[in-house]
């Protein structure tokens, strides 16, 4: 099978890779670019662990053809922190004990970022809705919901 040349922005940096036809974005990010922050959970859009932003919009990388990203901007958890400084959402997750095993956390953070970017002061119901595509085994969701609301609250005060 012939390979396709593909260029896109990955966390603000231009990347160029060759992909087989049909390669999904999750495989491209993890195996070709080496960004292991989007997680492989179910591979069929049922768990949300692979959530990334494409041009600011939330997508499931496992159900997205890598070629969809051509010429666009892909954001993953790896690009969230600024140097040594955690992103306010990451800080709020830590402060609120919103992670246990951590496998859902990258997807949760990206889903939360997508929400706060378009709705900086969400209601609790809006937070629940925003992360409803993401499964968490450990936390019972409550600490995650509280962390997202805390991050929004911190931003309002800052």
């Amino acid at each position: 099978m012939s390979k396709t040349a593909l260029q896109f922005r990955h966390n603000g940096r231009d990347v160029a890779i060759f992909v087989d036809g049909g390669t999904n974005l999750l495989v491209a990010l993890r195996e070709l670019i080496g960004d292991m922050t989007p997680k492989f959970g179910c591979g069929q859009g049922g768990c949300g662990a692979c959530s990334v932003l494409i041009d600011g919009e939330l997508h499931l990388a496992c159900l997205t053809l890598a070629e969809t990203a051509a010429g666009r901007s892909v954001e993953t958890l790896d690009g969230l922190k600024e140097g040594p400084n955690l992103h306010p959402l990451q800080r709020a997750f830590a402060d609120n004990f919103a992670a246990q095993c951590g496998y859902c956390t990258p997807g949760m953070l990206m889903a939360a970022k997508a929400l706060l970017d378009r709705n900086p002061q969400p209601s609790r119901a809006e937070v629940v809705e925003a992360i409803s595509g993401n499964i968490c085994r450990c936390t019972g969701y409550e600490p995650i919901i509280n962390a997202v609301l805390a991050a929004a609250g911190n931003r309002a005060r800052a």
Partner: protein
Amino acid sequence: MAKHRGRGIASINYPIGMNLGGDPSQALVHSNPSGKFTVSLSSIDLGQGMKSVTRQICAETLGVPVEDVYVDTADSDTGPHCMGSFASRGTHRVGNAVMAAAKEARGVMMEAAAEELEVNAADLETDGRGNIHVKGAPHRSISTKDVAIAAQFKQGKTISGRGIFLVPLSDVDPETGEMSPATCYAHACLVAEVEVDDETGDVAMIRMDSAYELGRALNPRLVEQQLVGGAWMGISHTLYETTEPYYPDSSHGPRDFVEYLMPGPGDICPHDIAVLERPAADGPFGAKGPGEMCANPVLPAVANAIFNAVGVRIDELPITPERVLRAIKAQGGAQPQARR
């Protein structure tokens, strides 16, 4: 057709650890020339906080800042033996082993410090901030870093300690059936309120109120995290999850996260938790274990709440809408019980 509210209660008595041929865990503690300490374990931190709590236990026992302790774990090739992370045994079994190892290491550290300060080790104390000084004379002091360097390069001593905690096998008495399967027990009581739709059989969680007695909470935030998440697992096992067998046969079983149902963030309910601390005599700093038991009271409490709401007693898990609906039909309709 209507929605019925019901309330159910359940109490549990949870044995910490297990009794299948004895239940041991080991720990090793050693100092590095930098004066920092490494705890070697093979116990797995699944996210429940084993690394944090063993780090706290080690630092507290050694008398050094928690920042000066590193926990290296999860590799059974490099760490000493552990039975594993289950049965709420981590804090109790591994914690006790770490405490024993840290006590032995502290003994060597104090001897090494005594040699440097030219005093009797029995006259020394740690300040918890990385220094060792003569009791009542804080100026006669040496840092744990300098003690580690002296032990390593001058005295030729390893500041290290070994620890094991074993609860031996308790055999069943063949005459009486008597045995002692655990050395300490945690306890919990949970009240669940549900709303049952007698047209669809759907059960919605309305709220939960619980009290847990789990010895001393060594890290209250981690305990809370366990209890909140564990209750969600309890809801999941009660109302959603099952592997096999599946109705009517295994070919109808779930194959992936789309079909294997678990409650999402919209299915949870408010949960008010009270933690009661009654230190265990044989626990590290009085701790028992908040792990597995935090899911347990949810199942009977929800089953009781469903009975209270519509009068049907479901004795199979998970309590799916289909099972509730069949039971309501068999009974000739919902029969709400007296509100409790």
